[in-house]
């Protein structure tokens, strides 16, 4: 196992894969209280021009956080995560989360992060700050 302190600038982070299902999206709506019908009603999502149901952006962001926290373990925590949702994520899409270290300063590690679908299109891009304990 490699310690967080041994990661250097430009090194890549371990990847995480995720395939959202309609069941998970429903479960997330109930847990988060976000019942926007674009996440739950395929006909509604088509009517408003989205081409069908989409996953919550916050659910996709939560997967990115999961990737980071799995990598960090008990050695630190995510103190800041800024993301842009570039493309919609749909049930059944295979999403791959990845990242690399942009900078290190003191106990702060700054990471570029992104997620891509199975067409290699970016669905999320962002920046994370990790504080080492």
């Amino acid at each position: 196992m490699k310690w967080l302190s041994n990661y250097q600038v430009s090194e890549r982070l371990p990847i995480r894969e995720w395939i959202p299902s309609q069941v998970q999206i429903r479960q997330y709506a109930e847990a988060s209280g976000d019942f926007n019908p674009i996440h739950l009603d395929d006909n509604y999502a088509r009517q408003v021009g989205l081409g069908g149901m989409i996953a919550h952006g916050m659910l996709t962001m939560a997967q990115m956080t999961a990737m980071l926290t799995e990598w960090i373990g008990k050695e630190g925590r995510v103190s800041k995560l800024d993301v842009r949702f570039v493309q919609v994520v749909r049930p059944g899409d295979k999403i791959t989360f990845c990242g690399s270290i942009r900078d290190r300063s003191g106990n702060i590690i700054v990471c570029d992060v992104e997620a891509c679908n199975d067409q290699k299109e970016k669905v999320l891009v962002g920046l994370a700050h990790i504080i080492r304990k």
Partner: protein
Amino acid sequence: MIGKEFIGRESESVVLKIKLEEVRRLAEAIGIPFNGEVPLTYVGTLLQANISGFELTNSGVIHGEQKITYQRPLSVGDSLTYKRRIKDVYELTSKSGKKRLVVLDTTGYDLAGELVFFSSSTLITPVKEDGQ
């Protein structure tokens, strides 16, 4: 339809206590093991602070950007106050048409008044042109 007149409007402060069961359900929905820690995206569930006249589930609203910064981690049992404020409303035109963007800030404090987290959501809503 939301316009620039909404800029600066804010909710009342909402007091909450982070409950074990809510956090466990959120972790399960995300698909991560629940180890007692509060997921970073927990702040995205803080939707109870209503801003007068502002409805999040307007037709076709999608999430464009999200920024979350924590001064310290949240823990189950923490008591917080938070409020939401509309920071900006502006329009953009792209090849997919005209869109209105709403920047919604959420700020959370502990009961001593210390800042605990800041979150900023950019929501995108399509603008119907004449004849659409």
